């Protein structure tokens, strides 16, 4: 091989490598963690693995799969079912939807559900012994508790990133196609699709007679079960996380860093605790007498119900995942931080951190 050929091949290999490194993450994109917990364990979906962590000690109980599989990626928030399953779908190049044993991490279903064409980024809803699983291919899939398809999937359009919610009779599913879809589970029919004016990446919150839902149109809409909608509040930027309702008070946040308490009866703001040069993507958490906010700058903040700052901790990394409660602890899962999970008590004292073993 002469020198010029060698130079040329080296150059092409270099360019190819440059292209590949620039494109890494393209085929299987990165995303922040999904987090769920019960009284004993936290369940963290974090890229190649789902981890179960003992909430008392912060030690790993199991990981799934045992060995990394480059085709599987887990970002959705897992869900625990009443009959003892942990449901999680993959967002990798292969998209199985799998049931695990929460105690051991072993697969419960011999065959994962794989009819979907897109990735699983959302948490499913279990309602009346049916698993309602929204997929990024725009379909809502329905399975029985053994993972067998129980009805034809409902095509909603647009990628579905959020968990459906139910008022006990109807399902409400938001979509990136700007709509909240109202579905009658009795006949799997879409009763109404209401345009929100912007993509809706998070779940609606159930209220009397309908739901509150935020969107990239920077508004909070009240959508009745009959499909009528009304804008009840506007924000300075995209509303990403789900609102939280407590009586007549609705808490929500936006990408401008506003954390807002709204009196839905009067439509007036009770308070706004703006986090300057920061953004709130995660849903707020209402627990006990405090409101917890996790911010992109890695701050974990507790307010009382009057909007007064109780404490603020910098966790590190970026907090995009909604905090969850487990026993005495509030768990936060920072993205691109030294650790993947941390537990705090209600006074803001860190109990433990969890870093996956390499």
């Amino acid at each position, binding site marked *: 091989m*002469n020198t*010029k*050929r060698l130079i*040329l*091949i080296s*150059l*092409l290999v270099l*360019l*190819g490598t*440059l*292209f590949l490194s*620039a*494109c890494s993450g*393209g*085929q299987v*994109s*990165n*995303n*922040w963690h999904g987090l769920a917990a019960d009284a004993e364990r936290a369940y963290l979906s974090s890229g190649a693995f789902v981890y179960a962590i003992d909430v008392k000690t912060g030690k790993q109980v199991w990981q799934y799969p045992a060995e990394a599989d480059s085709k599987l990626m887990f*970002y959705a928030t897992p869900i625990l079912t009443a009959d003892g399953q942990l449901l999680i779908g993959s*967002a990798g190049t292969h998209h199985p939807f799998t049931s695990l044993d929460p105690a051991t991490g072993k697969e419960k279903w011999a065959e994962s559900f794989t009819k979907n064409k897109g*990735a699983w*980024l959302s948490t499913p809803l279990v309602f009346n012994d049916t698993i309602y699983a929204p997929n*990024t291919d725009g379909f809502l899939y329905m399975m029985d508790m053994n993972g067998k398809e129980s009805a034809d999937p409902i095509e909603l359009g*647009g*990628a579905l*990133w959020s968990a459906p919610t139910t008022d006990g009779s109807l399902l409400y599913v938001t979509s*990136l*196609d700007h709509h909240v879809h109202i579905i009658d589970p009795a006949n799997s029919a879409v009763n109404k699709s209401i345009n929100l*004016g*912007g*993509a809706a*990446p998070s779940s609606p919150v159930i209220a009397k007679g309908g739901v509150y839902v935020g969107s*990239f*149109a*920077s508004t909070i809409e009240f959508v009745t079960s009959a499909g009528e909608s009304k804008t009840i509040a506007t924000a300075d930027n*995209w509303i*990403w996380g789900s609102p939280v309702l407590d009586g007549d008070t609705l808490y929500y946040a936006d*990408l401008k860093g506003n954390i807002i308490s709204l009196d839905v009866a009067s439509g007036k703001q009770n308070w706004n605790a703006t986090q300057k040069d920061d953004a709130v*993507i995660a849903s707020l958490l209402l627990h006990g007498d405090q409101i917890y906010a996790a911010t992109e700058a890695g701050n974990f903040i507790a307010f009382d119900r009057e909007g007064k700052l109780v404490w603020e901790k910098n966790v590190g990394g970026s907090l*995009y995942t909604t905090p969850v409660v487990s026993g005495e602890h509030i768990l936060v899962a920072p*993205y691109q931080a030294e650790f993947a999970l941390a537990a705090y008590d209600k006074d803001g004292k860190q109990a433990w951190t969890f870093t996956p073993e390499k």
Partner: protein
Amino acid sequence: MWDTLIIQPMTNLLLWIYDSLGHGPHMFGLAIILFTILVRLVTWPLNASQVKGAQAMQELQNDKEWQEIQKKYAKDKEKLAQEQMRIYKERGINPFASCLPTLIQFPVIIGLYQSITRALSATPFDMLKLARTMYPFQVVENIIPLNSKFLWMDLGRPESIQVLGFALPTLAIIVALTTYVQSKLTMPATSNPNDQSAQMAGMMSIYMPLLLGWFALNFASGISVYFITSNVLGIVQYAATGRANWSSLIPGSNKKTSSKK
């Protein structure tokens, strides 16, 4: 720096075109095609110099002095190379002019790939990055999420068509073919098997189609739309000069063609 100078302007431009087209089905593919045309217009002087360089190289093959040194120093490669460089210098010919524009395309390709994946936002984190990428005057709430469908393709995924149970990567094949055609057309014909610049161009005409075909096979099909559009425009641009060496498309015919001239 890369983000600010390459990704951000490219993504904003792509979305601006998409929005201007009415952001319906197939429009993101059309936006990529229009974007490619724009890139070709901006890099027109570079491509023109590529065409000019390739023509100069072809003309050189019929030059008496050039042919004489080929014969005279046929057995002394070092001396032949020195003489060739002298002639290149005297006549202001850059022997690599036909290769460089292809290589310079790479930052555009990488930038475009990242812009496409960012614009299509497969995950919430991608979407958040997209929100941060947009210029303040761009109102993207109405157009997000982008419609990634174009003809039979999902522009965010590698393309293939099921034929008799096999996944046929049609775009990857078209990318490889058009890249081959473009590089062959612009490749200087040579009468000398020892002409190193022609050898290098010859190798490029084999490796580049394979490399770009492999990219098309493995990455989002939006990038294949860029490759094909860019290649077709390059072929048209070269054919418009009336100097396209169409017979060189047949493997092994390059030397015969030049000897006929």
